[in-house]
């Protein structure tokens, strides 16, 4: 969503920002897992974006800008601060070495609830990058702008996030079949 060069008015903001409402809310809900927190987050995002719209650089990506505001608001919220603490531990341990197990079969077996649960429990940096890539279908460039990380990091973080999700799914499914 490249914004053409034009005077930045409230009317322009409305046209650009309102269509993102559902996406932003969904993303907020994935981050917070809570309806009222998600609402607060979205509301805060719109308020901040409207206030800061004059500083928005035309010609850059508006969607990435809005998602960035939402994400930063989340990270500075109480829930967000708690979740960032957990990342460090998670990042080292969750990644398993890529062994050539036929995981395709496992993933095919996973029902939606299992996948949802696995994604839900993933650390925020992994969860958010997977959502931006697979659900919002952002390009690596957009993701880089949203997360304010170098483009090269997007690829490696995505790779690790997928590995972590795969491992989590695999553990759940193996655990499930053991139990039976």
């Amino acid at each position: 969503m490249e914004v053409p060069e034009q005077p930045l008015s409230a009317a322009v903001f409305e046209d650009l920002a309102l269509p993102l409402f559902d996406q932003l809310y969904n993303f907020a809900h994935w981050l917070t897992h809570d309806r009222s927190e998600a609402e607060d987050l979205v509301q805060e995002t719109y308020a901040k974006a409207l206030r800061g719209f004059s500083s928005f650089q035309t010609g850059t990506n508006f969607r990435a800008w809005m998602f960035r505001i939402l994400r930063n608001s989340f990270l500075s919220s109480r829930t967000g601060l708690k979740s960032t603490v957990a990342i460090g531990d998670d990042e080292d341990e969750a990644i398993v070495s890529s062994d050539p197990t036929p995981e395709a079969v496992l993933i095919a077996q996973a029902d939606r609830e299992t996948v949802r649960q696995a994604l839900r429990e993933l650390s925020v940096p992994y969860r958010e990058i997977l959502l931006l890539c697979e659900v919002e279908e952002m390009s690596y460039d957009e993701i880089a702008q949203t997360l304010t990380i170098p483009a090269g990091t997007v690829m490696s973080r995505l790779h690790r996030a997928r590995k972590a999700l795969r491992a989590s799914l695999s553990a759940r499914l193996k655990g499930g079949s053991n139990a039976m």
Partner: protein
Amino acid sequence: MPCDQWRAQIDAYLDRELSASDSRAMADHLQQCPDCTAEVLEHLQLKRAIATVGPSDTPSAQFRARIMQSVTTKPRPAKQWLWRLVLAPAVLVLLLSLAVNLYVDHEKAERSRVYSELADLHVSTLASGTPVDVVSTDRHTVKPWFEGKLPFTFNLPELQGTDFTLVGGRMTYLGQAPGAHLIYRIRKHELSVFIFQDRGGDTAGLSSGPIPEFSFNAEGWRKNGLRYFVVGDVSAADIESLSKLLRDAA
């Protein structure tokens, strides 16, 4: 290129981040390499699994409205307002005039239909050998004759001191509804008076007053839940004075 290097590109390949030429090269390699293809399939399944569970929660309508309201600050451009200001009444007037035309046309058609039916009744009754079933110049004889025959009752005027005489009465039907058909005479001319219940149906929309586009002179009005019609080949003034007598009696 060894498979390890191909596999390192699988994510970028599926995320459509490879250049067109790299992407084609990858596709060519997958054609010949079942292991890499299996790996691609697994990555694809993971991508799809995430996309499927992507929608987490739907925002409530109230919250949506709240955000809409907070963001919608722009007053609509003046031109649009102007258009609406000008256009809305114009459209309204157009629609209204169309509706009025339709209504008037409909009422005209309805009026002429009812009155031509009444004229037919008037003519065919006078042409028959027995125009009336109750022959009497006395309203106190004619009126009771209808009792039990009609689901309503009515009053007839005292004619003493007028040029009108009562000839008699008979049962009649208009649009399947029973009514009274009375024959009056004035200077050798016969007039028909029809009385029906005002059912809001056939005769509902009819306006009162003389009917100018009609070959007979006629007048119709409604009073006390009844619908009256006077039809005859006499002058409008005679019709009017009989109508007045009937109106005053009812």
